[in-house]
């Protein structure tokens, strides 16, 4: 019958209209900013620096190795190494970043800085509502703003944080065991620091793939070989 | 010569004079539309409601749009024509002669009735009555004319492909 489709359509919209007042699951709108869509655990927005303990300056894990600065694709990390050293969590004197700035207007949240950091010092935060009306410095976060505690890291990424903590604890235990082993046998002393040095490097490399894919280990090896061969080449031609 | 009449007459004259004098074709038609509206208001002022509203509905609503469509489709905006034609003297002479004739006829006509005539009651009822009884034949002939015009317009506007299909 003519007009039948229109009447069916009208009935459908009327059902939608009155149903939206009756059953709340019809309206799937999330009323931001009062409500938020729950974020998954692997959410990443902008980086932050992890510190252990209570004091953010002394407990910061970052040793200003500047690997993340070099690997960052849009070059939004700006690091200035300090001139003095301070002891890190293991007790070893390390440099620390005197200036660690991230320009979050440039940062593209690619997480490469997190992937390459050998010290689990920089991790991804989950805060995205960081607008500011300060055009000239509001989006340049300095190291004080970037420093957040390990407890905070546990809050936002529990699985990751526990894995990192386990790995670090294991590494510290190994380092302590190696130190204890190095302290007792004297003739093995010159040999011990040599295997002890590459060991922390390989053992820090292994926990890093745990939250991420096991990629960073493999590419670390091949680039060294061509460099070695390339350095020998000019020697050969000359 | 009351104030409303003077205002409306001035508006009508100004509109139609602008329709002759303006350069842009569409502006001319819009000025002519102002003249039509003033004429409708004059009809209303004389008490002829039906004619006045029909004037607006037909002239302003349909004829003006027809005119603008025609000008829009045929007029080339790049052409700048000379504002005065070459034979403007002859035109002025003939226009003056026509105006003199009309003025004489109107002044002779109204001179015999100095007081305002009784207001004719041309209500819609009476108009409809007259159309259906006295003027039924002209009404039907006008209807036939309009139908012929409509069919002619459709034939002119129809696509030649559609015409071959329908033939």
């Amino acid at each position: 019958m003519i007009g039948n489709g229109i009447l069916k359509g009208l009935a459908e919209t009327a059902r939608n209209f009155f149903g939206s007042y009756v059953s709340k699951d019809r309206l799937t709108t999330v009323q931001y900013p009062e409500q938020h869509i729950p974020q998954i655990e692997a959410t990443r927005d902008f980086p932050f620096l992890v510190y252990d303990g209570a004091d953010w300056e002394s407990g910061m894990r970052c040793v200003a190795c500047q690997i993340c600065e070099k690997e960052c694709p849009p070059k939004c990390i700006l690091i200035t190494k300090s001139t003095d050293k301070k002891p890190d969590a293991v007790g070893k004197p390390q440099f620390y970043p005197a200036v660690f700035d991230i320009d979050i207007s440039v940062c593209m949240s690619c997480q490469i800085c997190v992937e390459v950091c050998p010290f689990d010092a920089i991790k991804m935060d989950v805060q995205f509502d960081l607008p500011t009306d300060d055009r000239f410095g509001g989006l340049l976060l300095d190291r004080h703003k970037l420093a957040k505690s390990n407890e905070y890291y546990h809050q936002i990424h529990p699985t990751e944080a526990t894995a990192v903590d386990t790995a670090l604890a294991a590494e510290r235990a190994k380092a302590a065991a190696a130190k204890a082993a190095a302290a007792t046998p004297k003739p093995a002393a010159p040999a011990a620091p040599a295997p002890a040095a590459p060991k922390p490097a390989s053992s820090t490399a292994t926990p890093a793939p745990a939250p991420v894919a096991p990629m960073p280990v493999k590419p670390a090896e091949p680039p060294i070989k061509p460099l070695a061969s390339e350095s020998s080449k000019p020697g050969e031609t000359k | 010569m009351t104030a409303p009449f003077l205002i409306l007459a001035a508006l009508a004259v100004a509109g139609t004079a602008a329709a002759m004098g303006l350069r842009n074709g569409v502006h001319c038609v819009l000025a002519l539309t102002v003249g039509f509206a003033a004429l409708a208001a004059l009809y209303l002022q004389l008490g002829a409601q039906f004619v006045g509203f029909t004037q607006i509905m037909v002239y302003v609503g349909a004829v003006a749009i027809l005119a603008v469509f025609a000008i829009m489709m045929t007029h080339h905006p790049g052409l700048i024509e000379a504002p005065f034609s070459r034979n403007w003297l002859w035109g002025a002479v003939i226009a003056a002669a026509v105006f003199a004739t009309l003025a004489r006829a109107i002044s002779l006509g109204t001179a015999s009735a100095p007081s305002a005539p009784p207001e004719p009651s041309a209500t819609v009822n009476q108009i409809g009555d007259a159309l259906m009884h006295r003027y039924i034949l002209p009404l039907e002939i006008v209807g036939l004319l309009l139908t012929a015009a409509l069919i002619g317009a459709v034939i002119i506007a129809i696509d030649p492909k559609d015409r071959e299909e329908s033939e």
Partner: protein
Amino acid sequence: MIAAALTTQDVDQIFVLIKHALLACVPAALQPIASAVLSIIPILVAFPLLFAITTVLERKGLGRMQNRYGPNRVGPAGFFQPIADGIKSLTKEDVVPLSADHAVHFLAPILLVIAAFLGYAVLPIGRNMVLVNLNAGVLFFFAVGSVVELSVFMAGWSSRSKYSLLGAMRAIAQMISYEVPLVLASVVVIMQAGSLSLVTIVESQSGYTGIFPHWYLFTPWGIAGFILFMIAATAESNRSPFDLPEGESEIIAGYFIEYSGFKFALFFLAEYLGMFATSSLAITLFLGGWAAPLSFLTFIPSYVWFFLKLLVLICFFIWIRGTLPRLRMDQLMGFAWKFILPMALLNIFVAGLWRFLPAGPLNSIRWLVCIGVLAAPCIVLSFSLKQKKKLLVRTYHFAE
């Protein structure tokens, strides 16, 4: 006067009484002008206010129909949104294209708003509440409505833009095509009432048999005429599903593409005012104007009933907008000339039949014959249209 108990008659006529009281304060020489001004001000206040409320209602209503909230931030449940919209449109930069015809570009929205407001002059909003009781009221309304087309053309042409010119041509074609069925659908009411004056038409619908009113809606030609009138009114005011001339996804707002800021707001206002005016005319012609629907409800004032009926029609417009997809231009024009116009002519014939068939008990013969004559082409059309659709199984030649 405050101490005396206000009867329902007083409440019904309260605006008339206020106007007479104010007029008594004015010296006699200025009374005609003062009377005109005092009558015009309520129209200028009430209908733009209704326009503001309608914009919010529409957005919220459409939202609920589409299973989402409408605007709900500004004010309680979002009902101050029109204030925000008004401030936005007033403060936006008025961009006029360099090659536009400035005089006509400026005059187009003004003419449109004038034409839209003029239509309210003959509408009876309550008992004794009409601005001018013209003998040819319906004719005046349609005459003013035809000025709208001219201003649409002016708007589209003066912008000197392809989209706006195309949109204006389409809009004018649509408006002219649907004006004929609009007038023909109202001719049946004029035939029955015997007068072009809207006050007379309302008064001829103000009787009651038992509790049921004598509205023209409750006759077969009245129902058909009302439906045809509403379809034509939807098309006249360029509303969905006939909003191709101004559809954002089709022609990027058509003839008001080059207007911004306040002029755009004026176009919007004029479109909605036109919608209200044609709805008010439909109420006056078919729904009994300011008369109450049931005889025991006459204690509620007449203007309240008018606005309630207007709100119902507005909600119906919003409902239709939320339901139907947009019609294509050729579908639109075909619908007007091939279906609505013949049905309107048939409706006039049926109204004549109604008048001359015997009005027996329950009017059963009249009803059956008239409904039969009106329904026959619809049924025949639905059968013939169904047969044309032979849905074949789709074959794909290249995709495996």
